[in-house]
């Protein structure tokens, strides 16, 4: 891509005399910022805190499961641990991670915009997020919630003694942060593309975020509606979910999964966008089958709304409904497979450099493939009857969410880290982290497939002793996984203090965000860029700001 940049002294840019980080100082300049890059960083810090919190819960769960007796925690404590692990990880880390951190930071840069369409709404979205997060955290501190992250009625509405209403209010408010981000991204992509940035010149990261934004806007309100119905039932005694009042507890599951299944795609589709960017860059190749990859994101977004009933094959829902849900679920496997095949084909005859982001991306492909294929086990109706609510399901969604989504997020974080901070991290240390995370992850979760097939139910505090050996293996793996995360975080934090200057484009990547300084100036571009070529034009000479500026 080609840009027109105001000639400026390259020396000034290199010294980073004025960029979005030092443009203003003070706490207030951060808490009231409307700069999408700073909001991205606010999200980075807060989502990382929730990731750490959820990770500690996961560690405690794995420690408890070392022995079959349930001797480390009370049953009630254990139930609260897995509930809060799920709530923290899903609502406060996975859903906002790629869109709100990486999307906020690079989406406007990629399309040549100065900011998102509604910068103040963008800040409001972060405040919704931390308000929701604060309420959920308060619910944890005040006594915890033990309903599971799925909040199934009538347990959650009538029987649970925990701080369910508080946690649900937190999730409710947090939902608005998703909606606002979705609205912002859609408008930004429609209205703020730089001249020449046509729809089919958009990087695939943008297409993925377009699909994600649609799902956020259409799906998230349903969670809010569900919550309001639960409140109506509890306050006014209208029977909606409570069978004693003539309600139907299964209805709650329908509403819950109508949002929460698309939410799975809200989590993973932005990750697809990251993987497309990283594989193209480190193979120096245009993405194979650009339009297939772009449209498969939209197909997944659309079909994702029509498969929620596959979580409910054992509830006694109509067999014919189950059949339709199973059918559409198999259908959605096709665009997903298409993506993996296209990424693999992109590497064909490329110039492959196994830098850290690429290692994460390749790890993603392997793990996501296993996650996706084990999904077909669960969409096979008769098979699901045996595997439903067992560790097979636990393992399957961790392969998709952690093996897929977290790997994609870390790939993107390592890819754009030099752009965000202006620093390079230690490549050897970062690679060590990546390899440990990959190995530790497999060690943790592969045994759980076997456990599930043997019939070990999920959310069990004590379990029959023949399952112990696999649980011990899983806990051992979690230790390696935890070590990998610690190395990864240390490496990134260390780079802030000791990292070498990154320069505008350390990976010789293509894309508008790589043609400006690292870190970028407050308004991103000195002058509106004009796009004249296709995305991923890796066969073209590099266009670097420094070169252009010195011309």
């Amino acid at each position, binding site marked *: 891509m080609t840009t027109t940049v105001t000639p400026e002294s390259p020396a000034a840019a290199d010294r980073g005399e004025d960029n979005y980080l030092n443009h203003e100082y003070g706490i207030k300049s951060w808490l009231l910022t409307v700069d999408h890059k700073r909001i991205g960083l606010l999200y980075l810090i807060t989502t990382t805190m929730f990731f750490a919190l959820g990770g500690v819960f996961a560690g405690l769960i794995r420690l408890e499961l070392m022995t079959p007796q349930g001797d480390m925690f009370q049953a009630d404590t254990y139930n609260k641990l897995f509930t809060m692990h799920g709530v923290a990880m899903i609502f406060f880390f996975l859903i906002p991670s790629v869109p709100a951190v990486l999307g906020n930071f690079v989406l406007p840069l990629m399309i040549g915009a100065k900011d998102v369409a509604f910068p103040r709404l963008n800040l409001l979205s972060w405040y919704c997020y931390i308000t929701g997060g604060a309420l959920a955290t308060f619910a944890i501190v005040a006594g915890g919630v033990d309903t599971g992250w799925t909040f199934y009625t009538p347990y959650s509405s009538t029987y649970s003694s925990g701080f369910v209403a508080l946690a649900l209010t937190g999730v409710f408010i947090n939902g608005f942060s998703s909606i606002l981000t979705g609205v912002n991204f859609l408008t930004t992509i429609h209205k703020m593309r730089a001249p020449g940035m046509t729809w089919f010149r958009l990087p695939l990261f943008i297409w993925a975020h377009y699909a994600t934004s649609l799902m956020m806007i259409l799906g998230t309100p349903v969670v809010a509606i569900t919550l309001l119905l639960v409140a109506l039932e509890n306050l006014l005694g209208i029977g909606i979910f409570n069978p004693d009042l003539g309600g139907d507890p299964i209805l709650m599951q329908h509403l819950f999964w109508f949002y929460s299944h698309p939410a799975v795609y809200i989590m993973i589709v932005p990750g697809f966008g990251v993987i497309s960017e990283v594989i193209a860059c480190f193979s120096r190749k245009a993405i*194979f089958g650009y339009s297939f990859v772009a449209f498969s994101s939209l197909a997944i977004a659309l079909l994702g709304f029509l498969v929620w009933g596959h979580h409910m094959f054992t*509830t006694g829902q109509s067999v014919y409904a189950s059949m339709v849900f*199973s059918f559409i679920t198999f259908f959605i496997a096709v665009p997903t497979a298409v993506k993996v095949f296209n990424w693999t*084909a992109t590497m064909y005859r490329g110039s492959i450099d196994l830098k850290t982001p690429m290692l994460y991306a390749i790890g993603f492909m392997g793990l996501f493939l296993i996650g996706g294929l084990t999904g077909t086990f669960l969409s096979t109706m008769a098979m699901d009857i045996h595997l439903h609510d067992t560790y097979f399901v636990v393992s399957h969604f961790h392969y998709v969410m952690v093996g897929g989504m977290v790997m994609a997020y870390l790939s993107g974080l390592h890819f754009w880290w030099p752009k965000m901070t202006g620093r390079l991290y230690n490549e050897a240390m970062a690679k060590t982290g990546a390899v440990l995370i990959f190995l530790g992850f497999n060690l943790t979760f592969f045994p759980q497939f076997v456990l599930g097939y043997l019939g070990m139910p999920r959310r069990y505090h004590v379990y029959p002793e023949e399952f112990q050996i696999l649980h011990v293996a899983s806990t051992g793996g979690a230790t390696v996984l935890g070590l990998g995360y610690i190395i990864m975080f240390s490496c990134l934090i260390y780079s802030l203090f000791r990292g070498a200057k990154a320069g505008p484009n350390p990976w010789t990547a293509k894309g508008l965000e790589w043609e400006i300084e690292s870190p970028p100036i407050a308004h991103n571009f000195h002058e509106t860029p004009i796009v004249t070529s296709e995305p991923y034009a890796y066969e073209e000479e590099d266009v670097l700001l420094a070169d252009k500026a010195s011309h």
Partner: protein
Amino acid sequence: MSKDFSLHPELASTFALPVDLLYFLLVAISTFFTVAVVVVIIVFCVKYRRRSEDERPKPIHGSLPLELAWSIIPFFICMGVFTLGADMFFRMYRAPADAIDVYVVGKQWMWKIQHPEGKREINELHVPVNTPVRLTMTSEDVIHAFSIPAFRTKRDVVPGRYNTMWFESTKVGEYHLFCAEYCGTQHSTMIGKVVVMEEQDYQNWLSGGAAGESMVEAGMRQFEQLGCATCHKPQSGGRGPTLTGVYGAPVQLASGDIVVADEAYIRESILQPTSQVVNGYQPIMPTFQGQISEETLLQLITYIKSLSEPTE
């Protein structure tokens, strides 16, 4: 129940083998695709590794035949697996007509089981081998799930409705019974065992212990005690419709709809009598919501069902 570690669960019902075959088919397909893609990625990583910083490989923008191939082939594989899974699911759904009935009530945190002959048990389910057994299940409180891994089957146990499941065990022995749907603090102790016995042993077990009344007898006693018989007389002419022959038959409602009087309908008519009134009768029956237990309700239903059976 084997206490030893194994990589494969026991096969103890007629579902176990077909489900396992489906499982191994899926494992084979998954292994094939995973290995194929991973090998290709590794080969590419080695063969096309960056040898110099100046490399600028030629772009390849795509290939329609390839895209079609790797869309259509997975699609047909998916459809094949879908069909096998759906077909098996239908077989798991429909209980054979000659299945014996057992009634299950779940509550936090135990399984209460009643056999029609009157025998009751908690957290254990005794069944005869090689005989289809149909469980009619409901819950007193939250959602539970009745799961028997060795039989490869499970079903949610939902308050306010009857869910059924069936199986035919093939091997005498004891098998894990789990609650698979998270149901609160002691969820993981809501477990028990399924004891599969030879037919003769099962009959001995049924008739052993204190000889109680059968579920039909208990239901008849309740029917009298609760005053049902005052209005629901054996012949027509009472203030309520007669219940003889009503189970399984179509009922004309006051609203004009016609429903089949199944367990769910009878249950609702007892708990919310005014919601589906039979045509020609006044909505005068009082509700029994909250006044009778799930077990009594099942006994009443069993009794009402017995009124539709041909008398000997």
